[in-house]
C-alpha cells in the first residue's frame, strides 16, 4: 500500500501543454502513473501523449474522473490553479513550481482546508509511491517498492534517503516532498499521520531543515505514533538563520536552529540520524 497516491489514482496535469508539463508527464507515464488528462486554458480539445486536454479542471474532472492533480505552471498562475483544483473536487494536489508568493500560499491553504484537499508544495519535487505512481519531477532511479515512508522538505534529500533505503533493501512505501518554500501546503505532522494509518509503512524517515517551524509542529504527532520515525535535520553546522525582525522572533520564539529541531524531535521519540548511512543501521536496531 501507499499514502496519497497509488496505481488507482486518476492523475491530471495542470499545465499539460507547457514545456515542463509535457516533459514530466511523459516521464510520469513511462513510470506507469495513471495520467488521465490535463488542462490548459484555451487549448481544450488538444491531446498530449494521447491524453485529453481541457480548458478547466472542472471539465477534466467530469470527463476523466481525475482525483489527483499535479501543477506545472509559472508561479504567478499557481494560486488560481490550485484554488481551481480544490473547488473542482481534486482531493490531492501536488504543487511543483517554486517562487510562489507567500500570501498566495496562505490563500491556497485556506481553500484547501475548507475543501478537504491535501496539498503538497510549492517548490516540491513531488511524491512517488514506488512501482505505482510518480508525481512530479523525481527521478525513478533511486526508488523501489518497500516498507519505509519518507517525508522531506527537500527533493535532493529525498533522493539520497531513497537511494539509501533502496540500496539496503528496505525500499519505500511512499516518498513525500513537502517542498522547500517558507509556507507549505502540508506540514510534517499531517503527512506523518497518513503514514501512521498505512499498515504497509513500517517506519518513516523524516528529514527536516534549519529554519521554519514545521519540524516543531511535528513533535506532538511523533510522540503519539506507533510507527517509528527516524529524523534527520540539515543545517547543523550552518550559520544561524536571520530572524525576520522582532516580530519573527516573537512569533517563532526559539524555533528554527537545526540542532534544536533535532533535539526536540528526539525528545518527542524520533530516532535521530546524522548521515544517510545511519538510517539502515537504525532501522536494523528497530527490527524494521
Amino acid at each position, binding site marked *: 500500500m501507499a499514502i496519497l497516491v497509488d496505481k488507482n489514482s486518476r492523475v491530471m496535469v495542470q499545465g499539460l501543454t507547457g514545456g515542463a508539463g509535457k516533459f514530466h508527464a511523459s516521464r510520469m507515464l513511462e513510470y506507469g502513473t495513471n495520467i488521465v488528462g490535463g488542462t490548459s486554458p484555451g487549448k481544450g480539445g488538444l491531446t498530449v501523449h494521447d491524453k485529453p486536454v481541457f480548458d478547466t479542471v472542472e471539465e477534466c474532472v467530469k470527463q476523466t474522473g481525475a482525483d489527483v492533480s499535479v501543477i506545472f505552471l509559472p508561479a504567478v498562475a499557481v494560486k488560481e490553479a490550485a484554488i481551481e483544483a480544490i473547488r473542482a473536487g481534486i482531493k490531492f494536489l501536488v504543487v511543483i513550481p517554486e517562487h510562489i508568493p507567500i500570501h498566495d500560499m*496562505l490563500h491556497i491553504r485556506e481553500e484547501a482546508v475548507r475543501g478537504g484537499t491535501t496539498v503538497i508544495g510549492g517548490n516540491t519535487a513531488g511524491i512517488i509511491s514506488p512501482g505505482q505512481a510518480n508525481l512530479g519531477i523525481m527521478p525513478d532511479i533511486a526508488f523501489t517498492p518497500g516498507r519505509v515512508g519518507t517525508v522531506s522538505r527537500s527533493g535532493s534529500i529525498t533522493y539520497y534517503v531513497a537511494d539509501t533505503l533502496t540500496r539496503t533493501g528496505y525500499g519505500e512505501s511512499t516518498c513525500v516532498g513537502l517542498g522547500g518554500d517558507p509556507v507549505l501546503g502540508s506540514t510534517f505532522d499531517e503527512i506523518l499521520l497518513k503514514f501512521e494509518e498505512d499498515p504497509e509503512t513500517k517506519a518513516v524517515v523524516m528529514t527536516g531543515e534549519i529554519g521554519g517551524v514545521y519540524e516543531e509542529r511535528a513533535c506532538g504527532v511523533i510522540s503519539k505514533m506507533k510507527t517509528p520515525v527516524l529524523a534527520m535535520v540539515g543545517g547543523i553546522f550552518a550559520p544561524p538563520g536571520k530572524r525576520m525582525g522582532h516580530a519573527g522572533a516573537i512569533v517563532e520564539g526559539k524555533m528554527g536552529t537545526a540542532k534544536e529541531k533535532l533535539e526536540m524531535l528526539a525528545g518527542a521519540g524520533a530516532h535521530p540520524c546524522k548521515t544517510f548511512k545511519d538510517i539502515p543501521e537504525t532501522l536494523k536496531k528497530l527490527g524494521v
Partner: protein
Amino acid sequence: MRLYEFEGKALFREFGIPIPEGRLAGNHQEVHEIARALNQPVVLKSQVLTGGRGKAGGIKFADNADEALKTAEELFKIKIKGYPVERLLIEAKFEIQHEYYIGVTIDRANYKLVIIASGEGGVDIEETAEKYPDKIFRKSLSVKQELYSFDALNIAKKIGIPSEHLKTAAAIIVDLFKMFKAYDAKLVEINPLVLTADNRLIAADSRISLDDDALFRHPELKAIGIEKRHEEGEMTPREQQAHEWGIPYLDLDGNIGMFPGGAGFGIMGNDFIHYYGGQPANFMDSGGGPSPERIAKMLVLLDENPNVNAIFGARFGGISRCDDFAKGVVMFLKEHGLSKPIVMRMTGNMWREGVKIFENAKKENPKLFEKVEFHGIETPIEEISKRAVELAAGRGAR
C-alpha cells in the same frame, strides 16, 4: 527582501501613517541643506540594511545645520557591521513621551497573519516578549480577513495608548495592516511608534521585509527604487557576482568548494563535510533545472575562489537533468579549465546520457579530466564527502 528605513517610511507616508519631517541625503552638503531647511534640532540616521545601527553609533543628533554637517562628515566615514554608510536620513528631532511597538508578520505554523503590539516599544522589545509575555498583545487574522477599526482600537487600548490618541493609533494599525497585504509583505514593523512630548503619534522607525516572489505584482515599487535584493546587508564581491548570475550563493570560512544540486542537500552536504572533519567554503544552490551555462558559472565561482582547495560535487537529477549537468561541466572544463581537484557523484534523471557526455569529452581530450574524480549511484554520498575532505587537506589524488 529588506527595505531601507527611508523606503519603508515612504510606504508609510503613502498609507497615511505619520512619519517625522525629513529627507534623504547622499553627502554632507545635502545634509547641511536639509538641516538648514528644517531649521531645528535634527537626527542623522545611517541607512544600512542591518540591525543594531544605534548601538554601533550610526544614529546621531545635532542642534543646528552646522553641527549636522560635521556629524555627517563623521558618519559617512564609518562602517556598521562592515557596511559603509552611504546615505543619511535627516529628520526633525522630537521629544519622546512614550514608545510603543506595532508589527505585522506571518505565523507560518498556523497559516495566519499576526499583529503584534506592545506598550513597551524600542530595541528591547524581544527581551520584553521573553520576560513579560503579558506585555505583548497578539491578534491573528486569516489572509482573507479585513482588520476593522474597532479591532485596531481594541489593540491600541490593550497596549495602553491614551484615550485621546486611540483613534489615531487605530488608524495607524489599520493602515499598517492594509500596507502589509497590499505589498505582499513578510514583515512590517513600526518600532518605536512614538508619542511625542507635544502629543503626536509618529512612526519613528520602519522595518519592512517584502516577499521577493511577489514583486511582480508591484511594478510601482521599482519606480521608487525598490528592487529585488538580499534580505539583509551587502554582499562580498563573489556573492555579488553570483547574485548577478542569479545563483544563490554565500561565502563561508572553509576550503571546500560546495557544488551540490538542490538547496536541501546544499545545506545537509555542508553538515556531511563537517562530520568528516572538513570546512565548506560556501553555500550554493543550483536552482531548479539549471542550464549547462549556469552549471559552468557555478564552477567558475568555486574555481576562482582562492580559499577553495578542492571541490565537492553532487547531482541527483530531478527537475535538473544529468545531461545538462554534464554538458555544463564539460563546457567549464573546456572554456575555463579546472585548477582544483574535484570529486563528484552524478545520478538521477538522464544519468546515462550524462555519463555518455563525460565519456565522449574524455575520449576527445583526456587532459581535461585530470583533476576529476567521477562517481555514479554505486558510491554512497558519504564516501564522496569523505574524499572531498581528504582532497582539501592536500591528501591528493589517489
